[in-house]
């Protein structure tokens, strides 16, 4: 049904485009799309761009990788200040609050409406849409590459301790780790405590347990929100991780130590990791010959009513100050990406999940989730849709969140190196994080989040 609808909308838009452009329709309208993915993923984006350009004659998108998310935002800001910004840009989840206050964008929903596209916003998974929507539900940017965190477990190691299922509670995890250690496994579980892992350690954990990261509903209700992770269930989580680390049940694995946790899991060195569903493809490609593994939802503490996990990844923003012709192209491009067929192409080649229900249904009907390397990825959808998002689990809307994540990494390192206690470390995280939020609020006096 919705495919037909999208098809019709695309057809209508195409017709309008041709009607308007036909008198001088020799060369297609070019517009720029800057993105932050690199390597394999950048090649997939390039193919997608090529597919878009070949699907119609009116527009030509020029897709340029800027290397990573940080660089994309930095370069876009520099370009914007110089008046040479791209039309469409991919911005990571944590940049959302900064983007919303930038005044530098054209709301994506208005863009689509002005150009005659009808987008069914209810089609987006609520956990994904609300991360990027205003408090009134307007979609200022469109979700693009989305993921969520999962527990990866080595079935062979679990079989050794007489288990056939992944642990569902953190209490079970503790017992299983000890059992695996006793069975001779050097590294029952691997974690990484760098800044970016804030995403799965702090943010996903808090969402699933319905615990706030900051006041004012994680910042959605005002720039005066302040952190409060030093007094939620998160304290117990860090305490347990530290305890297991001290007992040798958990090892820290990161690239700068020689092996990151995904490699440690795929090679069979470590038996449990928590990481993005986006790594599902990497594990499948690089796993040790004959190893049996699977994914499950992140565990919760016993007695917790599980809530939806958070979306990670990035969304597409359309920047202000471009011509109408370029905006038409951008609208056509967003519409193309929104198409379930594109979702299937995207998910097959990356590991990211579809962002719309219709995309998911299309992929299910296509048998995607029954095929070998992709089997298990549907757990991510189950995790994201475990509940209707609450005021806390719809997302995190804090200014300069990248700096807060950096502070998270710093304090976790201090805690795990025994420089400070868990409580001291988290108190410092809150104190320094609040100073960052304070500064953001001062930079935008009198402004409120849309």
């Amino acid at each position, binding site marked *: 049904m919705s495919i037909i609808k999208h098809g019709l909308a695309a057809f209508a838009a195409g017709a309008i485009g041709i009607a308007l452009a036909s008198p001088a329709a020799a060369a297609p309208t070019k517009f720029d799309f800057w993105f932050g993915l690199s390597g394999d993923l950048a090649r997939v984006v390039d193919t997608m761009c090529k597919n878009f350009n070949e699907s119609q004659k009116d527009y030509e998108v020029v897709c340029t990788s800027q290397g990573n998310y*940080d660089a994309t935002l*930095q370069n876009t800001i520099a370009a914007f200040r110089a008046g040479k910004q791209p039309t469409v840009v991919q911005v990571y989840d944590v940049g959302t609050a900064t983007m919303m206050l930038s005044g*530098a964008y054209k709301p994506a929903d208005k863009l689509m409406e002005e150009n005659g596209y009808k987008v069914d916003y209810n089609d987006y998974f609520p956990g994904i849409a609300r991360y990027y929507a205003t408090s009134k539900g307007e979609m200022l940017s469109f979700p693009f590459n989305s993921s969520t965190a999962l527990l990866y477990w080595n079935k062979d190691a679990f079989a050794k301790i007489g288990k056939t299922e992944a642990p569902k509670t953190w209490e079970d995890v503790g017992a299983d780790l000890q059992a695996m250690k006793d069975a001779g496994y050097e590294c029952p579980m691997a974690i990484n405590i760098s800044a970016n892992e804030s995403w799965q350690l702090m943010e996903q954990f808090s969402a699933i347990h319905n615990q706030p990261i900051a006041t004012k509903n994680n910042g959605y209700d005002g720039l005066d929100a302040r952190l409060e992770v030093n007094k939620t269930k998160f304290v117990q989580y860090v305490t347990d991780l530290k305890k297991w680390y001290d007992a040798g049940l958990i090892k820290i694995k990161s690239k700068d130590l020689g092996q990151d946790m995904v490699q440690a899991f795929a090679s069979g060195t470590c038996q449990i990791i928590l990481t993005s569903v986006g790594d599902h493809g990497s594990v499948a490609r690089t796993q040790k010959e004959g190893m049996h593994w699977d994914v499950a939802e992140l565990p919760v503490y016993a007695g917790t009513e599980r809530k939806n996990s958070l979306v990670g990844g990035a969304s597409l923003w359309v920047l202000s100050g471009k011509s109408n012709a370029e905006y038409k192209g951008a609208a056509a491009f967003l519409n193309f990406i929104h198409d379930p067929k594109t979702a299937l192409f995207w998910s097959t080649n990356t590991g990211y999940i579809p962002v719309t229900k219709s995309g998911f249904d299309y992929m299910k009907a296509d048998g995607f989730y029954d095929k070998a390397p992709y089997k298990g990825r549907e757990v991510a959808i189950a995790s994201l849709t475990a509940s209707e998002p609450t005021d806390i689990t719809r997302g995190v809307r804090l200014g300069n969140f990248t700096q807060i994540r950096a502070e998270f990494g710093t304090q976790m390192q201090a805690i795990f190196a025994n420089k400070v206690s868990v409580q001291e470390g988290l108190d410092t995280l809150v104190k320094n994080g609040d100073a960052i939020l304070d*500064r953001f609020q001062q930079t*935008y006096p009198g402004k409120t989040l849309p």
Partner: protein
Amino acid sequence: MEKRVTFSKWSIGILFAVPQLLLIFTFFYWPAGQAVYWSLTLQQPWGGGNIWVGLENFRAILSSADYWNSITASLVFAGISTGLAMFIALVLAALTDRQLAGSRLYRVVLIWPYGIAAPALALAFRFILAPEAGFLSVINRMWPGIWDPGLDGADAMASIIIAFSWKYVGYNFIFFLAAFQAIPRSLIEAAAMDGSGVLRRFRDIQFPLITPTIFFLLVINITESFQDSFGIVDIMTAGGPANATNLMVYKIYSDGFKGLDYSGAAAQSIILMLLIIVLTIFQFRFIERRVHYG
């Protein structure tokens, strides 16, 4: 008939200096002025409303424990790495200056490291010093956890000092060697004939004569350790663990570019600039007195 165009000395001087002045102004004073202006405002990253806050940015920075930690780390780094790089280079240069077989080869081999770009060098050292897979993994197998730059701040500091010194040994070596070679052979030969040994000749003849070079390298090395350490820190430790290697120059980068706090970063740049100026003045006032320009 003689035709003469005359300029007053003043105007011709200005005329020739204009291109240079223009370049200096455009590339040095204008950005520096911009940084001063930014440091007194709160800059919204996307442009638009900039708020004048006076010295508030400086107050915020100077009252942050993280910033003082970053100053301490920078001073420790500058002191140890400069000392190490200069001492090793001096010893090597003194050794290769003597008429040893193969000293030409030594020279070439020792000059090479300076040609390696900081990021490439840092990447190499990251692998060499990786606790599990690297060169030092052997000691880790004997005493687990003894070398852990990923979690131990002192180890991380040691690894960036090693990488930085390694690079500057090459640089310093070139200058020291040139200085040694410039010492008239006759002086040393005369001393040798008088019966003074190698160490005595070094202390009383060579060392005093190369003090201008030592002083020059000291100024350059300290300045560079504050600024050129960026690539090494970014690749090897990214300022971690727990800010142990968050040197001033790296903190400016991460606050300014990753954190989009342009004003805070501008204020930190001003402070770094002042610190380097003060250090340089200090070196010229107090250390240069001991320099013998011959």
